[in-house]
């Protein structure tokens, strides 16, 4: 409720008495050697309290989610445009800006490496001590020589997308007296991982770094990596004063990781009847200057390249590569978005070659539960791929464009570029498979604690709410299991075990499972308490609405009464089943579970001007179980809008490693007038593995909608369009 009145506190709203502002100096060059740093002029500016550089990092000088390869501050080389070199603390944001402008850095500018394939060439010098190859993974499955009766191939590219959450990076750090520790309020996706990395860089024990979640204005993967956390904590410890740091939009584009640009060479072999037989693919993911989660993104990319289709034979080589482009890491869809754009574009080519419709080719090849993936893993999840396609196909098409339509309904909107006679309608399909939760033997878990007393349940967990709706789901679980009306949510902080990251469509399953487990333990203890008090076998007790009742007799007591004067406190740690690493041939049970979705896009295209308006997205998504219908629909519509963005407008434009559009004027996000009508069907086939039967629903909506829109534009224009986002000139020139 506080979110609609303006009272909800986001991290940018944090404030402390006597606080200073922190700001970061960033490199204007994608690649350069730092010859000298001169802080003297900046120190002379009145109001400047501290300036720190790499020399001032007391602990580990680098950080990183998977490999610790990213400097807290660059000291010898800067490897991407926007890399931090120094941070200042001052009395006003404007003083900070003046101080940053007064820091003199001598650079020896170097030629940046900006092409992922070239970066791997033996003649290209490594731009980092760890080398230019972040990871290579091969998948070798089945017959390596099979040639299909029908062979289609293509080279597909995906541009760099930004998460573009609205709530900019911000944090407040409060130093402990004597500088022995620090307390931080921050918007992140994973408090405990942040703490681990911050503490290491500060040279402090983790117990000396306490993190509390501040309001998160969206995340979409971009808050998994550290951004300003270490800088802010260091400045607080240095000045012994509270420090607030807050990025502007431009800095935010430089300050967080993006979706990997990718280039995918791919060949599909099939029978004349359209049965997929073999996939060959070479995939390059441009990780930018530092590793972040590139190696995990790569694994998702290569293991999802077959799409939601049966295929036994595959030859896949995937490379995550270091370049002097901005670092890339997690974004909603995590490596699968790129793979899906390639495999779905290929499925349409295959359909054409076999004279089948897009729906037919996909139904012929649709994966089912029990099928074996190219990694050798058997799909144990519920896998209603064919049903997703059929139910999407059954959704009514939108009405044809009316000749007297309002300009706002036409391509170009108020720009009045296009009349109905200039517009061609197209239809396209996309279907996808997405792994849920973390993969490759990572022991992923979430902890939750439930305390019941006087009819009130209090839940404590470190699960980050980014807008996905866990703050609604958790109390709903507690109410259902415990029969309580009142559920209190304790502060989300590092005062309890980790909940893992709010990412990978995992929190409903993982933290939902933990809350479910903790509440069940509490209920058991409550039954035992009531059983002992009233001499009833606890096994006979159940919760009915807000009462505890005897299944056999007529005993009934309200939960409030039953829990009056007692305190029951239980903590539960939920783990998903273990997964395995992939071997050298890419074989292994590396994923936990999968979800599926189909999208059908209807677009209007002004073919001559290359302008596009997405009219309708029909979708049927495999959700396991719907726990909150409105929230589920919101996730679906929101994901679709992001996939639409990638299809036709969202791209960080890079020129020789330099970002050309780090602002909302030029990095375009879909507006209310770009949003299509979404018609969604949720397919409920409860997932036996999932604690609540529900699959994560956050990522699938944004994955296959991009290729569906691309296919619809191809349908309208006849162009191949091998790259997204599709720009006007790609269509009409």
């Amino acid at each position, binding site marked *: 409720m506080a979110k609609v009145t303006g009272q909800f506190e986001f991290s940018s709203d944090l404030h402390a008495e006597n606080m200073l502002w922190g700001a970061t100096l960033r490199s204007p060059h994608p690649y350069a050697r730092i010859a000298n740093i001169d802080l003297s002029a900046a120190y002379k500016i009145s109001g400047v309290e501290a300036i720190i550089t790499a020399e001032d990092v007391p602990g580990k000088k680098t950080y990183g989610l998977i490999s610790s390869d990213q400097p807290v501050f660059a000291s010898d080389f800067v490897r991407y445009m926007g890399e931090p070199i120094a941070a200042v603390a001052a009395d006003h944001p404007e003083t900070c800006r003046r101080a940053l402008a007064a820091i003199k850095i001598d650079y020896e500018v170097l030629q940046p490496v900006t092409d992922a394939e070239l970066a791997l060439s033996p003649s290209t010098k490594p731009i980092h001590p760890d080398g230019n190859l972040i990871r290579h993974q091969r998948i070798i499955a089945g017959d390596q020589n099979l040639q299909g009766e029908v062979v289609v191939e293509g080279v597909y590219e995906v541009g760099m997308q930004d998460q573009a959450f609205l709530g900019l990076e911000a944090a407040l750090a409060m130093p402990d007296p004597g500088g022995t520790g620090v307390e931080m309020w921050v918007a992140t996706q994973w408090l405990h991982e942040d703490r681990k990395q911050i503490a290491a860089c500060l040279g402090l024990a983790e117990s000396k770094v306490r993190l509390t979640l501040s309001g998160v204005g969206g995340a979409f993967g971009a808050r998994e990596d550290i951004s300003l956390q270490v800088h802010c904590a260091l400045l607080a410890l240095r000045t012994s004063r509270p420090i607030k740091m807050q990025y502007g939009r431009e800095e935010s584009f430089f300050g967080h990781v993006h979706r990997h640009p990718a280039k995918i060479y791919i060949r599909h072999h099939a029978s004349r009847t359209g049965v997929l037989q073999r996939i060959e693919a070479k995939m390059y993911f441009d990780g930018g200057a530092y590793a972040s989660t590139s190696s995990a993104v790569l694994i998702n990319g290569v293991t999802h390249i077959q799409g939601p289709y049966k295929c036994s034979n595959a030859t896949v080589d995937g490379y995550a590569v270091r370049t002097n482009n901005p670092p890339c890491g997690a974004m909603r869809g995590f490596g699968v978005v790129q793979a899906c754009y390639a495999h779905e574009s290929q499925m349409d080519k295959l359909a054409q070659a076999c004279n089948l419709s897009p729906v037919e080719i996909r139904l012929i090849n649709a994966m089912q539960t029990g099928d074996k993936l190219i990694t050798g893993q058997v799909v144990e999840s519920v896998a209603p791929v064919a049903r997703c396609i059929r139910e999407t196909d059954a959704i009514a098409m939108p009405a044809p464009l009316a000749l007297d339509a309002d300009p706002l309904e036409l391509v170009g909107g108020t720009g009045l570029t296009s009349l109905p006679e200039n517009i061609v309608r197209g239809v396209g399909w996309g279907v996808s498979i997405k792994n849920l939760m973390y993969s490759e033997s990572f022991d992923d878990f979430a902890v939750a604690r439930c305390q019941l007393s006087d009819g009130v349940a209090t839940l404590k967990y470190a699960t980050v709410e980014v807008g996905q709706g866990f703050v609604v789901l958790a109390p709903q679980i507690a109410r259902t299991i415990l029969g309580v009306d009142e559920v209190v949510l304790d502060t989300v902080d590092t005062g309890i075990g980790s909940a893992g990251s709010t990412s990978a469509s995992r929190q409903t399953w993982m933290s939902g499972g933990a809350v479910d487990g903790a509440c069940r333990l509490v209920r058991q203890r409550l039954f035992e308490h009531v059983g002992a008090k009233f001499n009833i076998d606890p096994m006979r007790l159940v919760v009915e609405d807000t009462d505890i009742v005897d299944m056999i007799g007529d005993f009934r007591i309200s939960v409030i009464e039953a829990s009056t004067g007692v305190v029951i406190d239980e903590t539960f740690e939920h783990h998903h089943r273990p997964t395995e690493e992939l071997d050298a041939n890419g074989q292994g049970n590396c994923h936990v579970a999968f979800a599926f979705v189909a999208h059908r896009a209807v677009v209007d295209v002004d073919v001559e*001007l290359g302008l596009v308006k997405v009219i309708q997205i029909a979708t049927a998504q495999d959700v396991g179980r719907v726990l909150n219908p409105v929230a589920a629909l919101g996730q679906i519509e929101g994901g679709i809008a992001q996939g639409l963005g990638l299809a036709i407008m969202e791209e960080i434009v890079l020129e020789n490693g330099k970002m050309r559009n780090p602002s909302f004027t030029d990095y375009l996000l879909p507006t209310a007038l770009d949003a299509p009508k979404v018609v969604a069907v949720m397919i409920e086939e409860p997932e036996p593995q999932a604690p609540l039967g529900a699959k994560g629903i956050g990522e699938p909506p944004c994955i296959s909608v991009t290729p569906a829109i691309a296919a619809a534009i191809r349908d309208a224009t006849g162009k191949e369009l091998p790259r997204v986002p599709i720009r006007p000139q790609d269509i009409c*020139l």
Partner: protein
Amino acid sequence: MSVVVPRTLTDALRAMAANPSALLLQGGTDLMVEINFNHRKPVDVIALRKIHELRAVKIDGETISIGAGLPYQEMESGQIAELVPALGQAARTVGSPQIRAAGSLGGNLGTCSPAGDGLPVLSALDAMINLRSANASRNVSIHEFMVGVKRNAKQPGEIIVSATVPIVRGWQGFAKVGVRNAMVISVASCCLVVDRTKGSIAVALGAVGPTVIRCRQAEQWLSTNVDLKQDAMIGAKLAKEFGERVANEARPIDDHRGTAEYRRHAVATLASRLLQRSGAR
């Protein structure tokens, strides 16, 4: 350092005379972005938002004079949109409703970006720009006012007071290409005005050159091929050639918003379509 918020034009001009280097702030939609993005450090500011004279609209039969501070939202519908439809259409494409509540022709003229949405309309209508200083008033043709990329003929101490355009008998329209269906900066735009009384046509292009471009040669070519005093259907072939001739006069560049080649193609298409619309019944 100072901020002055004068109530009258006279007070504003006096303040300007006292401090000719002061920054003039109209709606803020350009200047505040520069300040927020650390590209400009304001020292002295004269804010024009409280001056009613700058929002005045005056009609004298043949011309309409629009105050430089009149927000675009006032032009989207009503009298201005009826009398100068192309301006109404251009106004509606400016930014968002919030921007249109603040932004004005004075801002577009002052910033003088080739992508300013109001400028092609002023150019196609041969607008006269009224500039005033403490002791002088002068009228400058829009064509002389726009000097180059973000450069104009305004002198220190001058304030842009109004733009005056003729009320033309004949079809007029504006079209703008952007990659999004709302709130987008122009990749290319075109304004076309047919003057049935004079039998002439005017075409001006936005975002395809250092400043707004008037396509005199294409205009000339068309007026020698078509009797513009009469309503007439325009054939597709003629329209296409007209578009190509218009595009030949564009001087677009490649940037992150679009390629020069696309911009040239876009203005050809827009000009051709607008011409056909001018003849449609």
